[in-house]
C-alpha cells in the first residue's frame, strides 16, 4: 500500500529510526533543536527548513544545538566519530564547508588511511545543496565535485524520498565519513516510502527509465529534469535511458558503461559548474572505456561557469532544464532520430 511521504520527511524518519536503533547516533547542528532552553523547544522548528523537527522531543539531549561556528562543531563531530559515536552533523548549506575544510579533507578523510586502516570515522555531514531557492550565490551552489575529488570521503545526493531514506540509513551505518547532499528544491517531492528501516548500498546507480537510443546520467534535481526530457524525447521517437548515480563516490561505472554500450550515446547532466565536475568525470570515463560504443561525442549539460545569480529569471536559466537536455540529446542523434 502506497505511503507517500516527502523527501524531507524521509530524512527525518531515517534519523529517527537510526537514533532508536543505535544509541551512539547523535545529531549536531545550528538550530536543529530550535533553540535549546527556549520556550516551545519541544515543537520548535528543527533546522532552517524543519528537517529535524520533532526529533528533540523523541531523543532529548542526543540532539545538540551548536554555536554558529562550523569549524568547531564539524570538528567536534569528526572527533566524536573517531571516539566511537556515530554523529550526524547538519551544516545547513554545503556552501559553508569552506571554514571546515581542514577538519573534513585533512582529518576525517585521512584517518583510515594514515592509521593503517585501524581508525574509523563514521560521521555523516548533511547539507543542503543546489539552486532554485532564491537564496543567492552563497547558499545555492552544487559543490558535490569538490568532495568527490577527495579520496576517503563518500558523497551521496539522492533524487527522491525513497532513496533519501535508504541512503541516509546506509550513510549512518557506514564506517567512513559521508557527505550527504540534500537538494533543497526536492524537499517537498513525494514518493512511496516503506515505514520500516532499509539501507540502499553505496555505489549502485539506479536505472530509473529504460531506453535504447541515448543514456542520460544525472543525480539530485537533474534526475527529474532528465525524466521530463525523456518524456519529451519519447514523443519524437527517441528512447532515452535515465541513470541516477545516487552516490558520486563511490560511483557505479559499470551501470553507466553497460548502458552506453547499449545506446551508443551519452548526455551527462550536472547542476555543478562545468569545470572538473561529475559531467566531465563521467564523459571522460565513458570516452576512455567505451569509445568504441559511442556513435556521437558525449554531451554535457551543466550550470555555466558563473556564481548562481540572485535574479530569479537568471537563476531559472542557470539550472540545467529539460529543454537543454533535449537539445543536447539532439546533438547526439541529429534533430531526427538516426537510422541506427
Amino acid at each position, binding site marked *: 500500500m502506497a505511503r507517500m511521504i516527502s523527501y524531507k520527511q524521509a530524512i527525518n524518519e531515517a534519523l529517527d529510526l537510526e537514533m532508536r536503533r543505535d544509541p551512539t547516533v547523535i545529531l549536531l547542528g545550528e538550530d536543529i533543536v530550535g533553540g535549546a532552553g527556549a520556550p516551545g523547544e519541544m515543537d520548535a522548528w528543527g533546522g532552517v527548513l524543519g528537517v529535524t523537527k520533532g526529533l528533540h522531543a523523541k531523543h532529548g539531549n542526543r540532539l545538540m544545538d551548536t554555536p554558529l561556528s562550523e569549524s568547531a562543531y564539524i570538528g567536534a563531530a569528526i572527533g566524536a566519530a573517531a571516539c566511537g559515536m556515530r554523529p550526524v552533523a547538519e551544516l545547513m548549506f554545503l556552501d559553508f564547508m569552506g571554514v571546515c575544510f581542514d577538519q573534513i579533507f585533512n582529518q576525517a578523510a585521512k584517518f583510515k588511511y594514515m592509521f593503517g586502516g585501524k581508525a574509523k570515522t563514521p560521521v555523516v555531514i548533511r547539507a543542503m545543496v543546489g539552486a532554485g531557492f532564491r537564496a543567492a550565490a552563497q547558499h545555492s551552489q552544487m559543490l558535490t565535485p569538490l568532495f568527490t575529488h577527495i579520496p576517503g570521503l563518500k558523497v551521496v545526493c539522492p533524487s527522491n524520498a*525513497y532513496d533519501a531514506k535508504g541512503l541516509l540509513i546506509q550513510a549512518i551505518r557506514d564506517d567512513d565519513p559521508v557527505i550527504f547532499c540534500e537538494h533543497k528544491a526536492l524537499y517537498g517531492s513525494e514518493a512511496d516510502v*516503506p515505514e*520500516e*528501516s*532499509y539501507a540502499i*548500498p553505496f555505489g*549502485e546507480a539506479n*536505472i530509473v527509465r529504460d531506453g535504447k537510443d541515448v543514456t542520460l546520467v544525472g543525480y539530485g534535481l537533474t534526475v527529474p529534469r532528465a525524466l521530463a526530457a525523456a518524456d519529451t524525447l519519447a514523443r519524437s521517437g527517441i528512447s532515452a535511458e535515465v541513470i541516477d548515480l545516487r552516490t558520486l563516490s563511490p560511483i557505479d561505472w*559499470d551501470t553507466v558503461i553497460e548502458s552506453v554500450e547499449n545506446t551508443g550515446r551519452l548526455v551527462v547532466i550536472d547542476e555543478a559548474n562545468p569545470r572538473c565536475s561529475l559531467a566531465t568525470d563521467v564523459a571522460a570515463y565513458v570516452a576512455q572505456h567505451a569509445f568504441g560504443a559511442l556513435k556521437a561525442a558525449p554531451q554535457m549539460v551543466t550550470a555555466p561557469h558563473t556564481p548562481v545569480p540572485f535574479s530569479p529569471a537568471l537563476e531559472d536559466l542557470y539550472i540545467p532544464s529539460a529543454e537543454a537536455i533535449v537539445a543536447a540529446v539532439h546533438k547526439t542523434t541529429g534533430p531526427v532520430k538516426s537510422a541506427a
Partner: protein
Amino acid sequence: MNERIKPVVMPKWGLSMSEGKVTGWLKPAGAAIAPGDEIVEVETDKIAGVVEAHETGTLRRVIGAPDTVYPVKALLGIIADDAVPDAEIDAYVAEYATQAAAEAAKEEAPRYHFIDTPAGRLRYARRGEGAENVILIHGFGGDLDNWLFNIDALAEVASVYALDLPGHGQSDKKLADPSLTGLSTALLGFMDALAIDRAHLVGHSMGGAIAARTALDAAGRVASVTLIGSAGLGPEINAGYTDGFVQATSRRDLKPVLEQLFHDPETVTRQLVDDLLKYKRLDGVAEVLTALSGALFAGGRQAERVAEPLAATDVPALVIAGASDKVIPATHAQALGARATVEVIEGAGHMVQMEKAGRVNELILAHIA
C-alpha cells in the same frame, strides 16, 4: 444492460492497480471465443498478464488500442453471439460508462489487514464470504500479491485469506524457527488469531511444503491441500535460484534470477524487480532469507520431504506444476502418485498460478468443491 452482450474490460490485478496498458490482442475481431481463451494482453506497472474469456461467443468488437493505457473496468472489447444485431452492440458501447465502473471498482477495493500472532504482526488480505475457508500461502521470498490472479476467482465460492509469512511482504521481519515446523506453527497461530478452525490450504513452492507439513501435524484443521510448484516433494531444488535470490543486491544481479521463475522471462518487468529489491533491502529480510535457504534448501537439496508421509494420509491433495519450472522440477508433481490429483501445465514455469491463472483457479475450485 443487454445480457447477451459480454464486455471485455481492463482487469484489476491487485489492490494498487488503477490502470493498465493493452499490449496486444491474441484474438482478432470476429474470432470464436470459448471460456478460458486468452483474448488480450495487458501490462501494469507491476506485471504483464492475459485477460481470459469467461463466456462463449464471437469477439464482435476490438476497442482497446495496443500501447494505450486504460483505467480499470474500461471497455476493451465485446463478446456476443452472432445473432446479436450490430446496432445493439453499438448502443451498448455508447452507453458503457467506464468512469462510473472504475469508481465502483475503487470503492469495493478491500484493504490489507494486520493481525498480531505469536509469530509477530502478519499482513493478510481477505476476500469472499463462502462457508469454506481457503488460505493462500506464498513461497520463499514471495508475498500475498503472488495470488493476485487467484484470490478473487476463489473468493466467489469461499472465504479466502492470503497472508504474508513471517519475514515476508509487510509482515514483521523476524522468524524464530526457519524449519517447516516453525513456519507451520506460524500458520496455525495465524489461523488461531483469526478463529479459522479449518481451511483448505493452497501453497506455492515453500508454501506448499508448509501446507503439507500442517496437514501432517494438525490434520483436523486442514480440509485439503493444493500444492503448486511445491517444495517438499523431491530431493533437489535449483540452488542458482535460491542462493541467487538471497545474494542479489542490485537490479543487474536480481533480474536474471527472477527470470528463472517464469516460462516467459519477459514477464519480469522493471517494477517487479524494483519491488523485490525494495523488499530485500528492509532490515531483517536478509537474515530471514539466509536462515530459510540454509534450513530448507542448502546446497540445492531440499532438507525436508513431506511427500511420503502425506501420501500415507487421506488428506485430499491436488498437485499442480508448470511444465517448464526451472526452480523445482515438474517431475516432483508425481511424488504422491495416484493419491493426488495431478496436473502439469504446459507453457508455465514456477509461477504457474500467475502464468496460467485461469486453469489453476479451475483446478482449485473443482478440488475444494
